[in-house]
């Protein structure tokens, strides 16, 4: 992946001014003003060439948010139709195998970006670098999903425009039977400067 290209383009494409937040100097975690995936996040203090190993050791795997989401048939159909879906499994609520479109859970955002006391990493803007969705089982209309959010990974990559830090937030969605139905990995990219 061309990280440098990603960063340049996404600084333009993904900044959402109303959602800009600055971390307070005492490093408390903050909540998003809205459950919104196209956000940007500005750190108040840039760190320089931070050693990520101890941060990874302390924070990868930390679970920090929990939420529930109701899966409504009307929204599931509207989402799939707006995406141009033609498969009846996704656009016909009467279909015997009616289910949510594969990426439907990507709009169910955690209310918090980082755990309490999460260290400041990198500088500048945090950019929404993309999403990976894993479909483990069909999501049905009427399901109430419970989502847990963890820091799944922290790593860096170096490209032409310098070193970038990737922070991966993972949401795992389970239905009322505790069956894992969907995993969404959300990659946040920050400059290591």
């Amino acid at each position: 992946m061309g990280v440098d290209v990603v960063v340049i383009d996404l600084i333009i494409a993904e900044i959402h001014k109303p959602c800009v937040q600055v971390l307070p100097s005492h490093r408390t975690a903050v909540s998003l003003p809205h459950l919104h995936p196209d956000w940007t996040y500005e750190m108040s203090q840039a760190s320089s060439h931070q050693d990520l190993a101890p941060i990874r050791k302390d924070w990868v795997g930390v679970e920090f948010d929990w939420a529930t989401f109701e899966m409504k048939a009307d929204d599931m159909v509207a989402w799939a139709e707006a995406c141009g879906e033609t498969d009846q499994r996704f656009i016909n609520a009467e279909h015997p195998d009616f289910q949510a479109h594969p990426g439907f859970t990507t709009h169910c955002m955690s209310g918090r970006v980082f755990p309490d006391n999460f260290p400041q990493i990198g500088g500048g803007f945090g950019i929404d670098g993309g999403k990976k969705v894993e479909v483990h089982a069909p999501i049905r209309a009427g399901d109430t999903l419970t989502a847990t959010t963890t820091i799944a990974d922290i790593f860096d990559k170096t490209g032409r425009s310098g070193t970038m830090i990737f922070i991966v937030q993972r949401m795992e969605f389970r239905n009322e039977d505790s069956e894992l139905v969907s995993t969404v990995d959300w990659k946040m990219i920050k400059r290591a400067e």
Partner: protein
Amino acid sequence: MTMSTVSGFDEVELGDELPTDTPDVSMKQVTSFCHSAKHLFERFTDHDAARKEGFPGAIVPGIMSQGLLAAMIHKWAPGCTIKSIDTVFRGSLIVDSTITMTGAVTDTDDDNKTVELDLTIVAEDGRTGVIGTALVEFLN
């Protein structure tokens, strides 16, 4: 080779291309998506407001672009199951423009009847807006 549709794993070969698609990203369609996603921000649904934020016009939400690619896969292989889809948002796609989606088979797994796809969405001006991959499972 471009296959309009495939009905089973045996019809898929490494290197096959999915039919190119130009999905509807009109203001009406994007606004409908934003309502379903509770994703109501003017940068997606109002050209003038988006320009005030520095964009060329209203932009297609990243999560919608992923959904457009999923729909393309289902058109190509009706009845298949998308096991995973991973997209990187590289640049803005403009509402009311013509965007082009492509896909190609990059790997096949006979044992699991799965295929891997490379996916791309190109903006009207030729820029690459989204790149991605998907893992797709066939029932037969």
